[in-house]
């Protein structure tokens, strides 16, 4: 998340929005945003409704055995069609902003 914030201007320059989704309630997300300086939306899905709809639920992996989201990244085009997906097989290894920027460059070469 920090790395996406650091390169947020490069996404903004391409007209691409960044959004995070987790089970954390808005209070936690507000505190984290202030602490880490996140300026993109962190959305709260405490009942895992959307997380389930995307099939990115990690059952029982949260504190006290709660359900949380597994790390996953989706790049959508302006019509909401998925153009690139990253589903890691290692919780410690998540998509880097440069991977998504590369995918963006391949989908719509710079200068358009």
């Amino acid at each position: 998340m920090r790395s996406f914030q650091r390169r947020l201007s490069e996404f903004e320059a391409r007209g691409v929005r960044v959004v995070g989704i987790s089970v954390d309630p808005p209070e936690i997300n507000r505190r984290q945003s202030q602490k880490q300086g996140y300026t993109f939306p962190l959305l709260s899905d405490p009942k895992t409704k959307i997380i389930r709809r995307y099939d990115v639920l990690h059952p029982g992996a949260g504190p006290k055995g709660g359900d949380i989201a597994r790390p996953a990244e989706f790049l959508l085009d302006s019509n909401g069609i998925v153009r690139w997906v990253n589903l890691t097989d290692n919780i410690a290894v998540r998509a880097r902003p440069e991977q998504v920027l590369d995918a963006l460059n391949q989908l719509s070469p710079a200068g358009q």
Partner: protein
Amino acid sequence: MKRRWNWPIWVGFVVVVAGVFSYEFFARLPITRDFPWANFLLFGIGIALLIAGLFRAFGRPQVYRGKIFGSIFSAITVLVIAFFSYEIFYALRQVPASDGAPRVGQKAPDFLLLDQNGKPVGLGDLLSNSKGVVVIFYRGFW
């Protein structure tokens, strides 16, 4: 006669402990982010020192101390590295398959959720006036 301090045992053990507690630090560096090889390097150095110390303690017990605490430190080291390896090579890789996740070419499911300011944000809002959206699911800060 007083026997000499067996420093490799102590230093080796401290290096192993440092290898565990530096995990968070190395996880932030680009070159050690995806695989904690720096931590395993520290474990290797620590083990080498511990073995050298044990050879001294058991090989020349009349000169060097460390038969008892060298054995205790070595046992703790084995347990610590076994647990660390279990986490890195097994536990972190237990990720659900997510076979039903939206694929390339499919329409992403809609959502309407509260942001950090308590304001509802929908996928439609994010898509309007933009050329795309990066949706990042994350485990959360709890």
